[in-house]
Structures are given as C-alpha cells and as structure tokens.
C-alpha cells in the first residue's frame, strides 16, 4: 500500500461544479459537461494548500513523538507563495505537504511516478524534479546564503514546466470531461 506521499495527488480536491469556464492559455472553451471535471482549478488548489498548511501550523509540539515543532509561519507563507507560483493554470496536479521536525516542510507533486519536490527548512530551499524512471529532470539545491534571485527564478520556471509536463494526464481529463 503506498504511503500518503506516494498516492496520486490529482484527486485530492472535490470536483468543482459544472458547467464551468475553462481557459487554457490561448484557447477558450466553454466546457458544459454532464459529469463534473475531474481535476481541480488553480483556485481550488490554492485553497486546498492553504487549508493543509493551516492544519500543519496547528500541529502540537512533539507531533513526531520527539521534539518536532509545528510548521513555522514563514515557511507556511512561503510554501503557499511557491504553490501559487508553480501552479500556473487549472487542471494541474495537487501538492501534498509533509511537515519536518524543525518547522520546515516538504511539498510534493506526484503524478504517475513523476515527482516534483520542494523542501523548505531552516537551512534553505531545494527544488527537484524526477521522472518516474528515476532520471533527474532538474535540481536546485543552492548554498544557503549564496544564490541569486535569477537562480531561484530559473528553478521556479523549471518547476512550472515540469509540473505542466507531469500533469498532462490531469489536464487532459479536465479538457475532455
């Protein structure tokens, strides 16, 4: 049985009510459907992420059976910013959030074995995309105090592109439903 982090993440949020307006960048399509679309909108994903992060902020001290502290507010805030930045359109995969004992967290998008992971902790940030075969698509693991905004921007652009690619199936479900 897969762990929570290994479950497909695109079915986490309840289906939005149809009919709805689906805008896929250049193409506008009124999507009237007998059955609601399977994938969540961008707004749904942000609300879901905010709910999850609020829950992690309320973890009791020692939640891990040791000295684990709740998710720190600046990491919760940053995680939501990053999900906002990476989720560029409707129908993409939904992230999962795993707290770390030091008040940081790991954000994971998992679709069909392909995995996008962002780690935030007191030592910094890392962003990594891995294809299902285990090949690394990209990696951003900077030295804590020595990276440029342009490097972070580049990594976020990589993450956006990777999430779009691995969410293709999810997107397809939205557009054809």
């Amino acid at each position, binding site marked *: 049985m897969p762990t929570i982090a290994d479950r497909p993440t695109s079915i986490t949020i309840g289906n939005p009510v149809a009919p709805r307006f689906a805008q896929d960048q250049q193409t506008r399509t009124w999507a009237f459907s007998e059955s609601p679309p399977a994938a969540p909108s961008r*707004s749904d994903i*942000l*609300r879901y992420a*905010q*709910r999850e*992060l*609020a*829950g992690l*902020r*309320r*973890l*009791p001290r020692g939640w891990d059976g040791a000295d684990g502290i*709740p998710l720190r*507010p*600046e*990491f*919760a*805030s*940053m995680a*939501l*910013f*990053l999900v*906002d*930045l990476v989720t560029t359109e409707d129908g993409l995969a939904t992230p999962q959030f795993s707290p770390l004992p030091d008040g940081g967290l790991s954000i994971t998008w998992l679709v069909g074995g392909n995995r996008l992971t962002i780690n*935030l902790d*007191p*030592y*910094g*940030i890392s962003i990594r995309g891995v294809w299902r075969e285990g090949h690394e698509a990209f990696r951003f693991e900077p030295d*804590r*105090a020595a990276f440029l*905004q342009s490097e*972070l*921007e580049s990594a*976020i652009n990589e993450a956006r592109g990777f999430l779009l690619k691995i969410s293709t199936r999810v997107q397809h479900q939205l557009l054809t439903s």
Partner: protein
Amino acid sequence: MITITAMGETKLFDDLPSFDRPPVVEVAVGVHFLQLPGLTAVALVRLVDDLWRSRFPRIVEQPAAPPLSAPGGVLMMAFQLQTGIPPMRLWSLTEDETLLIQVQHDRLLLNWRKVKDDDPYPRYKRLRRDFAQVWREFCDYVGDRDYGVLQPSVAEVSFFNRVPMADAAEIPAFVEILNPEWRIGGQLATAYQLERETTDLLPGGHQNIALNYRPENGHMQLEISTRIDVDTATGEVSEVLDSLDTAHRIGVLTFDAVTTESAHSAWGRHDADNS
C-alpha cells in the same frame, strides 16, 4: 504581571513604566496570518466597505507590504517573482486620519497617528480595545466566506517615536544604547538597526530597533517593532490579544531600556499606570 480576564481584557499593566509626554507619533497594533487565497483585491474592497465604511470612510490603495521574512531571504525573493495580479493593501481611515486600518491578504493592523502636534497618544488600552473589535469583525466576516482558513501567526506592536534635535551629536542624550561618551566630528547622518530574538517571555518572537537621524528632518526617529508568535494550537481571539499584550509589554520595556534617564525626565516617566 499581566492579568488577562474574560474576553482577553487586560487588567493590569501596573509594573510597566509610563510617560506623560511620550515622543510617540505612530503606533501600529495587529496580527499577521497565513495568506488567504480568497482575500483578493475585490474581496478586500467589499470587506472594508461592508465592515468599516461608517467609522473609517476614507479608503486608499497601497502596494502590499512584504511577507514575514524567512531565513536567507528566500521568501522575499519569491515574493518579488510573483507573476499574477500583485496583492493589494487597503487603508481605511477615519475622517480625521488619526486612526487607520491596514488590511491585506496576510495581515490586519490598526494604526494611530499623530496628525496635529497637540494630539495626545490615546494609549495602548484604547488601541487594544479598538483592535479587538476590528479583529472580531474581521474573523466573523472571513469565517462566513470561502476565503481560506484564518490562521494567525504573529501579533505585532510597533512604536514610532520622533525626537526633535538639531544635531546628531544630541542622540546620546536620548539613546542609552549609544555610549554617551562617544563623539566623532563631522557626523552628518546616523542610522542604527538592531534585530533580536525575544526569549525573555513566552511565546517567543522578534524585535527590530531602528534609529535614524538626518539633519534635514530636524528629528531623530526611533522605531521599536515587536512581533510575538501566536499560539498555533488555537489562534483564538484571546490568544491573539495575549500575544499582542506581550508584544506591547516587551516594546515598552525596550523603549525604557534603550532611552536615557535624562530623556525620561523630559518625557515625564513614571513607574505605573501605562493603561
């Protein structure tokens, strides 16, 4: 000792120093919370109009203030990378512009500002009471709508003091933390900033002390901003006000500690009744 009674009403501040003529020109009290995805620009406009139009009729748009900082400044970098519609902050002001509500997707602040020279500082107890009302109204409003989960993170009390002076050499007469014996010729401008963790009272937090003097302004500005973590287990109104009281307490004690006895005399310092 601070005693909290029903509804978070603060009963005693008796052990805090007080000043008859404090040099304070602005005070901000408020709460930071996890950003609410649904509190968009449109929602903000509706919120301030629905809740505060009668008491705070003047509305001014402002760019959003930056988020709480994270280690390494990564959050600030990410904040600058936003590509969608940038978040907005709204000011709602009273007619006389002495009171101001600042609201954006991750914070709610109430500011008092000295508009006329003879405007008295209304004192923390009054600001706390007014903020408690505004915060309750905000909580109820957000709770009735699908904006997201209101999860308070930090309570803030910031004091902005202005001390008239003609020369930077006068600063040590007012600020204890600078050695009164220290002198250097040709000093045109002075800036001093200190950031520290507050671990003397629980819950913990951060404090920023900033001093700035420029001769063209004719005064020294001394800012003391204290941010205290809100109990994450509940985030109830009373918890928020408890953290606000702690931030106020540390802020007052810090002001007392960093300023000189001669300045205290000029400002009418006494040991009790800071309510």
